[in-house]
C-alpha cells in the first residue's frame, strides 16, 4: 500500500492533491460496505425486538397478514434486484441502453413494492376489497398493540430504505441518461446497485420474520 497522495501541485492551496479514480474507488467500496455493516445493527435490533415482543405465552407469534400480497411484493423486489444487476453489468461494457432500461425497470418494480407495502399492507387509504376470496388490503392499525408496533416499525424502516433506494436509482438513471458513467468510471452505478441489493437482502430476512415464522395471532 504505497502512499496514495500525489503531490505534484501541493503547493497551490486551492487544488488539493489529486487522488486517482482507482484509488478513490477503493475508498468508496470500503466505505459503502462499512455502511452496510453499520446498518446490519439497525435491522438486527429491529429483528430482536420482533422476537422479544411477538410472543404469547413463550410461543413465537406473527400477525395475520395476506400471504399473497407478501409473496407478490417480495418477488417483485427480488426481480428488481436482478434488473439492477443487469444494468450494472451493462454499463460495465458500455451498453448504455440496457443499463438505462434495466434501471428504469428496477425503479418501477421498487415503486410497486413500495405501493404494495404502503397502500396494500398498511392500507393508508382504508380500502377494502377481496379478489377470489382473498382480502387484499391489510387491516392492522397503529393502535393494535405490539403486533402493529413492530409491524410498522420493521416495514417502515425498510420502506424508508426502499424509498431512498428508488430515488437513488432514479438519480443514477437520470445522470446516465445525460451521458454520465462509462465502463471505466461508474462508481455511482455500482453504489446504487450495492445499496439496492443490500436493501433487498434485508427484506430476505424481514419477510420470513414478518410472514412465516411463528403461529398466527388472532388479536
Amino acid at each position, binding site marked *: 500500500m504505497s*502512499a496514495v497522495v500525489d503531490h505534484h501541485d501541493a503547493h497551490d492551496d486551492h487544488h488539493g492533491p489529486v487522488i486517482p479514480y482507482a484509488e478513490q474507488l477503493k475508498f468508496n467500496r470500503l466505505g459503502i460496505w462499512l455502511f452496510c455493516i453499520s446498518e446490519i445493527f439497525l435491522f438486527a435490533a429491529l429483528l430482536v425486538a420482533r422476537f422479544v*415482543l411477538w410472543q404469547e405465552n413463550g410461543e413465537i407469534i406473527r400477525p395475520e397478514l395476506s400471504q399473497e400480497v407478501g409473496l407478490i411484493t417480495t418477488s417483485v423486489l427480488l426481480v428488481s434486484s436482478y434488473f439492477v444487476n443487469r444494468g450494472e453489468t451493462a454499463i460495465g461494457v458500455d451498453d448504455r441502453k440496457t443499463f438505462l432500461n434495466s434501471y428504469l425497470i428496477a425503479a418501477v418494480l421498487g415503486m410497486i413494492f413500495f405501493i404494495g407495502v404502503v397502500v396494500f399492507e398498511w392500507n393508508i387509504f382504508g380500502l377494502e376489497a377481496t379478489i377470489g376470496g382473498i382480502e387484499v388490503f391489510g387491516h392492522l392499525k397503529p393502535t393494535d398493540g405490539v403486533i402493529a408496533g413492530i409491524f410498522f416499525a420493521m416495514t417502515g424502516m425498510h420502506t424508508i430504505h426502499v424509498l431512498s433506494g428508488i430515488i437513488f436509482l432514479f438519480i443514477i438513471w437520470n445522470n446516465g441518461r445525460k451521458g454520465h458513467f462509462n465502463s471505466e468510471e461508474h462508481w455511482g452505478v455500482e453504489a446504487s446497485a450495492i445499496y439496492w441489493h443490500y436493501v433487498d437482502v434485508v427484506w430476505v430476512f424481514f419477510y420470513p420474520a414478518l410472514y412465516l415464522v411463528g403461529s398466527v395471532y388472532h388479536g
Partner: protein
Amino acid sequence: MMLAIVRFARSRAAHAIVSGIVGATIGGIFAWILRTVLLTEGMINAVKFLSGFALIPGEAIDTFHPILVNVLAAVIFAVHVMVGAGSGMGLFQDSRMGRFMYYAGASTYAWGLVGQVIFWLEGALLVNLFRVWSGEPFDLMAESALVLGAFFSVVGFLIVGGVMTDWFLWIGGHETPLHHGAPEGMPEWFRYFSVDVNHKVIGIQYGFTSLFVLLVGGIFAILFRLELSAPGLQFLEADQYNTLFSAHGIVMIVSILLGVGAMVNYLAPVMIGAADMAFPRLNAFSYWVGFPSFLLILAGMAVGGWDTGWVGYSPLALRTAVGVQLFMLGFYMSGFSSIASAINTIVTTAYMRAKGMSLFRMPIFVWAALATSLIQFTATQTVGVALTMTIAERALDLTFFNPENGGNPVLYQHIFWFYSHPAVYVFILPGLGIISELLPVFTRKPLFGYRWIALSSLGIALVGFLVWAHHMFTSGMADTLRVPFMITTMLVAVPTGVKFFSWIATLWEGKMTFETPMLFTLGAISVFLIGGISGPILGTIPTDLHLHDSYWVVGHFHATMFGGFIFPFCAAMYYWYPKITGHMYKESLGKLHFWLMVPGFWVMSFGQMSVGVIGMRRRISDYDPALGIQGTHVLITIAALVIGWSILIMIYNFAVSARTEPVAGRNPWGSRSPEWQAPSPLPEFNFDVPFEVVGDPYDYGLEDAIYTQAAPAPSGD
C-alpha cells in the same frame, strides 16, 4: 436548476438577507432588553421623579414614556436590520458591527439557523395540514408537529447551510471539484465559520464546538449543584431540576463525542501521513449534522423539558413532557455524525497510511481512533432504534415499550445499553490513546509494550460489547442473564489494566519533565484510575444492588469520563497547541489550571462516591438531611465551581497565547511523531514532502533510531 439556486445562495442579495436576519436578531435582543428595563414600574417612577424637576406632569409620562420607549425600540430594531442588510451588500465595512454582521451573515451557522427555523415551520405546517384535514385544531406546538418540525429543521440546517450543496450538484449531474481554502473573497480565518473540507479545519471546528457545549453543560451542572448545596428546594422546582440534570448528561455526552471528533479528525490523518480524510465532504457533514442536533436538545428544554435523565427509560419517557421528543431526536441525529465520521476514520486508516507504516508502526493514538470507530459505526445504530421507537410510540401511537398495551419496558433498556455501554469506551479510548502517545515523549522512553497496548484497545472495544446489561442488574431481568453479564463486566478490567501497567512501566526510569501536557497526562492516569477501580464494585451484583442508582455511580462515571476524556483532552490541547497555532501557550496559566482542576476533581468525585454509599440517590432535587451529607454536598459544589473556573482559565490561555506568546518552532517537545516533523502550523495538505516509515514509532533512547524520513520521489510505481 440546482446551479441557479446555488448561484442565488452565493449572491449579494442572499447575503444581505441573512445579514439582515442577523441584524434583526441582534436588534431584537437589544430592543427587548431596552423595553424590559425601561418599562418597569421602578424605572417609570424614576423617570417621573426626574422629569418633575422639568415640571413635566406625571400623567404625561404615563402616556408618553411607553410610546417613546416603544418607538426607540422599534428604531433600534430597524437600524439593526438595515445595518445588517447593508453590511451584507458590502457597506459599513469600517464599523465593527457592520463587519460582524457581514461575516456572520455569510457564515454557515447563520445560514443553517435560518434554514433550521424555516424548515421547522414547514414540518410543523405539514403536520397541521393533516391535522386540519382530519378535523383536529391547528396547533404548531402539537407533539407531532414538533417532532416533524424538529426532524425537518436539522435537514433544513444542512441544506440551507450549504453542507449538502455538492451532493445536490452531483445529483444534478454537475462537476463538483473539492474546494480548498477560504470561500471566495473571504479571509483565511473565515474557513472556520463555513463548510470546509480540510480535516484540520473540521477538527478545530469540532474542538471549539466541544468546548462551547462543555460550557453549556457545565453551566447546567453548576445550576443544579447550587440547588443541591442544601436540602430542600432552593431556587429550582423538581421538574426544572430533572430537566437540568437530564440535559447536563446528554449535553456533556455530545460534548465528548465532539471532542473525540476533534482529536480523531485533527490527528489521525496527520499521524499516518495522509493529506486529508478519505471522504472530506462526508467529514464536513459529520461535523455540521452535530450542531443542529445539539440545538434540538436545547429546544427540548425550552418546550417543557423532560424528566427521564439521559437514558430516557420508558414508560416514563412516554408520559413526561414533550421535551423528551426533541431530546431523543437530537440524540438520534447526532448519531449520524458518529457513524459517518467513524466510517471515514476506518477507511482513512485502512488505505491512506504512509509508505512503510504497517499497523504496528502506527502512532498508538491511531489504534485508539480505530477501536473507537469500530464501536461507533456499529453500536450507534441500535441506540437509534431505541430512540426512534420511543419517538414513534409517543407521536404515532405505536406500541413497543408501554406495558399497558402489551409492550416491554425492559427491551428498551437492552437496546439502549447495547449502544450506551460501548459508547462509554468511545469516550475514553481516544483519551487513553493520548496518554499513551504523550508519555513516551515526556519520559524519553519507548512506550512499554506497544503491541499489547494497541491490542488492548481492540480488546476493550470487543469485550465492551458483551457487558451492557450490567446497567440493568436491578431491572428485573432473569438471573440466567445477570450472572454472565457480571462475569464479562469483570473481564473488561483486564485490557484496561494492561494499559495502566504499561503506562507505569513506561514511567519507571523515565527521565520525566513536567510541562502542562505531562501534568495533565499524569492527572488523567490518577483520575481514570479512580473511575476504573470504582467499576468492578458495580460489576459484582451483590454490591451493585446497594450502589445502583446511587451517587457512587455518579462518582464512578464522572471519574472515568474526566480521567478518560476531559483530562487527556486538555493534555492534547496543550500539547498540540503549538502545532495548531504555531505559538506556545502560557505555561504558568496551564499549571494553574492543572493545580485547580485536579484537586477540584478529586474532591468532587470522592465526595460523590461518599454520599452515594451512605444512601444518596441519583436524580433527586432534594435529599434527606438525616443522611448527614450536606457538608459533603457543599464541598462537591465548591469543587464544581473550581473546576469551572479552571476551565475558563484554560480558555483564556488559549485565546490570548496565540497572539502574545513566542513562536514555537517545528518540534518543541522533541517528539518523533510525523506531525512534529512538519512546519507549525501544518500546511494545507500536511506534508509537502511525503514521508515513509522505516522504524518503530517510540524508539526514544535508541541512538540513531529513525521513525520517518522523506520518501524518495515517486517513480511511477
